[in-house]
């Protein structure tokens, strides 16, 4: 009767009433208003020519991987704090303190790598099956753009924890971007957020990683999928089996593949836990999944810097152009990758001819083989020392040291035998590579130690200062002490456990006392040992080699009538107590006795000032508070002060004293860190 009513009739077909449950009625209600059944039908009942195949699963696994990244990424976002002062700190909090944070971050991190592998597989399947050919060219190009978007997300995500690894890798990547002709420097400055790396770098990379790139990717993906549906699946030829429907046959294969991908991802995350369990070690969840290095520090060298493994081939490729200077980097990082991408974009055009298609397939395989080869080369260069037998190069090492790598001397050694020299040079090169690899491995070990120390410090009950983790690390004696010592003290002083196997070799190279355990009873016991006092661990390699102290230890202390063994032990205990490092349980009476002996004008007090024994300064160092922080800082600041060695100071610089028109070598803070480190005075978590 009424047209409107008729229209309604058409939209809402009559259904048998009463035969449906509540759910069925609800479904009808929804379908009437959304038409979801038709949509579902459209989505699921796509014809798959020749039936479902495993080779078609890669696209679906990529969508699945992307969805996983969206879910995990959004939750990570809810706890991530993008700034140079809080990025590391918030990632630490996620990884080590929030429930399940390690698992979520682990999935996000490993799935990102899985995605790169899946991309390669998807691309290979498309090229081999010739699925890029007309009319699917545009969709292939879209796929390449999607690939670059995914790689861009991988690159930007690497920085976000703002740890040493991400920081240095990003510096390299952005510097390479600066090589792009004309716009390079501006491009770099825009991405970095200014002339320097900092807050704006983190916020920009975060916006690019979690906003620009995924939003663009979703748009592209929608077009990619709708074009895929428009053209239908490009079936593997020849078709020998009956067609099937996407749902459920292909969906089942896709779902199994997704499950397999997730199983591999979880396997990678949980493998170290299984290993720990088998070896009976405790499982620390925070150590599973994605790594977190030490916080980014532009003032600390980071020799362990490497890009993520899937960019390692590019890193290695750049080495090919090492001798070329800046134009080499431009060629390796911009021109060649640009040409490769261009060749890939041209594939659908070339693929119109059978020969062109064969070329495309060969090109893809060659590309992957090249990437594989470069990756293997990079890995080999870095890890060669792990599997090479360095001891078999002992003769080469010895000869290089003896001849100081002087070509003429080496030639003379081999009696100018050209063949022998050539063979030697080959082995010397191999040794050089092993040494390179070893220094990389050492850097990795150092980076690991720095990382776990940062995490230990971040867990202090006082928590991280508002200035950020870097401030805490820079004031930590355990992490800074060894670096400062290596830089300023180790050219003369050794710092090696006398019981260690390498101790002899290290001590032989030192020209001042071994400071390992300085302030402890063990150190003092060695000093008062007639066999050791003139040895390399004490005064042996110094100007004090034949001074009064050595004479005293070797002649007076050995007189058992004046110095009973108990007396010497008492002196040792008293001196360790001065340092505040006396062993727990040392009897106070013993220390008191030792103090009396040290002050005694006929014993130590004949030269040394000690407490109120009245000995004038200048004849020997004042040993009141010997080995304490204050005493150590004092002697490092100025050993030529009359409180210490005065005029008889050997070669030790006055590290804390300003020279004429020059600042002191070390700041007070640095000297304090060295003193604390030597005394073993640093934060230790409860229970350690």
């Amino acid at each position, binding site marked *: 009767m009424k047209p409107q009513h008729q229209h309604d009739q058409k939209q809402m077909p009559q259904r048998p009433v009463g035969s449906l449950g509540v759910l069925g009625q609800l479904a009808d209600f929804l379908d009437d208003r959304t038409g979801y059944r038709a949509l579902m039908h459209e989505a699921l009942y796509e014809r798959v020519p020749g039936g479902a195949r495993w080779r078609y699963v890669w696209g679906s696994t990529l969508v*699945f991987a992307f*969805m*996983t990244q969206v*879910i*995990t990424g*959004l*939750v990570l976002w*809810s*706890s991530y704090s993008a700034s140079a002062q*809080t990025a590391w*700190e*918030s990632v*630490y*909090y*996620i990884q080590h*303190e*929030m*429930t*399940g*944070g390690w*698992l*979520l971050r682990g*999935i996000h991190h490993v*799935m990102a790598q899985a995605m790169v592998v899946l991309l390669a597989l998807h691309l290979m399947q498309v090229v081999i099956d010739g699925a890029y050919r007309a009319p699917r060219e545009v969709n292939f190009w879209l796929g390449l753009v999607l690939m670059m978007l995914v790689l861009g997300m991988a690159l930007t995500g690497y920085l976000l924890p703002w740890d040493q690894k991400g920081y240095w890798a990003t510096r390299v990547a952005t510097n390479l971007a600066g090589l792009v002709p004309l716009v390079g420097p501006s491009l770099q400055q825009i991405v970095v957020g200014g002339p320097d790396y900092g807050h704006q770098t983190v916020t920009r990379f975060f916006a690019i990683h979690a906003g620009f790139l995924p939003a663009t990717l979703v748009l592209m993906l929608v077009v990619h999928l709708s074009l895929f549906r428009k053209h239908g699946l490009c079936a593997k030829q020849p078709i020998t089996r009956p067609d099937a429907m996407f*749902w*459920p*046959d292909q*969906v*089942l294969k*896709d*779902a*199994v593949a*997704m*499950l397999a*991908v*997730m199983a591999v*991802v*979880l396997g990678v995350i949980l493998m170290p836990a299984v290993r720990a369990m088998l070896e009976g070690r405790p499982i620390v969840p925070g150590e599973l999944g994605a790594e977190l290095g030490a916080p980014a520090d532009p003032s600390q060298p980071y020799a362990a810097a490497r890009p993520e493994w899937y960019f390692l081939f590019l890193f290695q490729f750049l080495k090919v152009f090492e001798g070329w200077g800046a134009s080499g980097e431009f060629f390796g990082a911009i021109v060649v990758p640009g040409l490769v991408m261009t060749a890939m974009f041209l594939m659908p055009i070339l693929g119109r001819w059978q020969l062109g298609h064969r070329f495309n397939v060969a090109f893809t395989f060659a590309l992957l083989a090249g990437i594989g080869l470069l990756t293997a080369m990079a890995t080999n260069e870095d890890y060669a020392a792990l599997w090479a037998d360095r001891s078999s190069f002992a003769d080469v090492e010895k000869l290089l040291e003896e001849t100081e790598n002087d070509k003429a001397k080496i030639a003379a050694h081999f009696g100018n035998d050209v063949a022998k020299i050539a063979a030697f040079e080959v082995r010397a090169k191999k040794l050089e590579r092993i040494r390179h690899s070893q220094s990389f491995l050492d850097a990795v070990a150092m980076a690991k130690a720095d990382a776990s120390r940062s995490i230990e410090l*971040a867990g202090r009950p*006082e*928590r*991280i*200062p*508002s200035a950020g983790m870097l401030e805490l690390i820079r004031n930590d004696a355990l992490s800074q002490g060894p670096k400062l010592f290596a830089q300023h003290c180790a050219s003369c002083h050794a710092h090696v456990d006398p019981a260690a196997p390498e101790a002899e070799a290290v001590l032989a190279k030192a020209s001042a006392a071994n400071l390992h355990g300085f302030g402890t009873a063990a150190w003092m016991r060695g000093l008062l040992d007639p066999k050791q006092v003139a040895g390399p661990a004490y005064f042996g390699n110094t100007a004090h080699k034949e001074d009064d102290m050595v004479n005293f230890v070797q002649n007076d202390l050995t007189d058992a009538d004046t110095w009973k063994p108990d007396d010497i032990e008492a002196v040792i205990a008293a001196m360790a107590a001065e340092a505040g490092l006396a062993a727990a349980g040392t009897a106070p009476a013993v220390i008191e006795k030792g103090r009396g002996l040290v002050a005694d004008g006929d014993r130590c007090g004949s030269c040394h000032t000690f407490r109120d024994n009245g000995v004038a300064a200048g004849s020997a160092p004042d040993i009141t508070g010997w080995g304490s922080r204050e005493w150590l800082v004092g002697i490092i600041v100025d050993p030529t002060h009359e409180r210490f060695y005065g005029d008889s100071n050997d070669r030790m610089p006055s590290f804390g004293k300003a020279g004429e028109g020059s600042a002191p070598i070390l700041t007070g803070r640095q000297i304090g860190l060295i003193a604390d480190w030597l005394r073993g005075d640093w934060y230790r978590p409860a229970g350690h």
Partner: protein
Amino acid sequence: MTRDKTSDESAADRRGFMTKLLAVVCGGLATLPPVLAGVWMFLDPLRRRGAAATFLPVTDLASVPDDGIPRQFAVVADRVDAWTGFAAEPIGAVYLRREKGSDTVEALSATCPHAGCFVEMESQERCFRCPCHNSKFTLDGGMVAPSPSPRAMDGLECQVAKNGEIAVKWQNFYTGIAEKVARP
């Protein structure tokens, strides 16, 4: 014939059903880890507890004149915000008030019991007023009807030491309800 075909068909149906079931189960299982890990981490705040209510030194008796007029003081304490530790930081404010000649100090939380805004003192009107929804309180924190606030201002336990140092038991209370209930 017909019978056979029917059993063939029902076998195909069963196979189809198993395929669908397996597809859904596999897909579901694959999606489960990120979803569960996400929910697990997202709910982490539920297991966090605020600092226990403790007496914190605020000021001394001499700084609170005995004229019945409340004065505002900052409450200073060490504070932990997720990963950051702040040493001796202002974490809130209290009003302290002393009647003429009295050594007893009354402490009021500056947090409005209605919706948690910062209650301000109007010295001219000699009352407290919340700038958000105009809750009004007398100088001793009592309700002035009509008020959006369901209860009077929250009093805080207060101790005056022999040396005159005033310490306040710093607590937060649930807002918007008639009863004064401390947050855990």
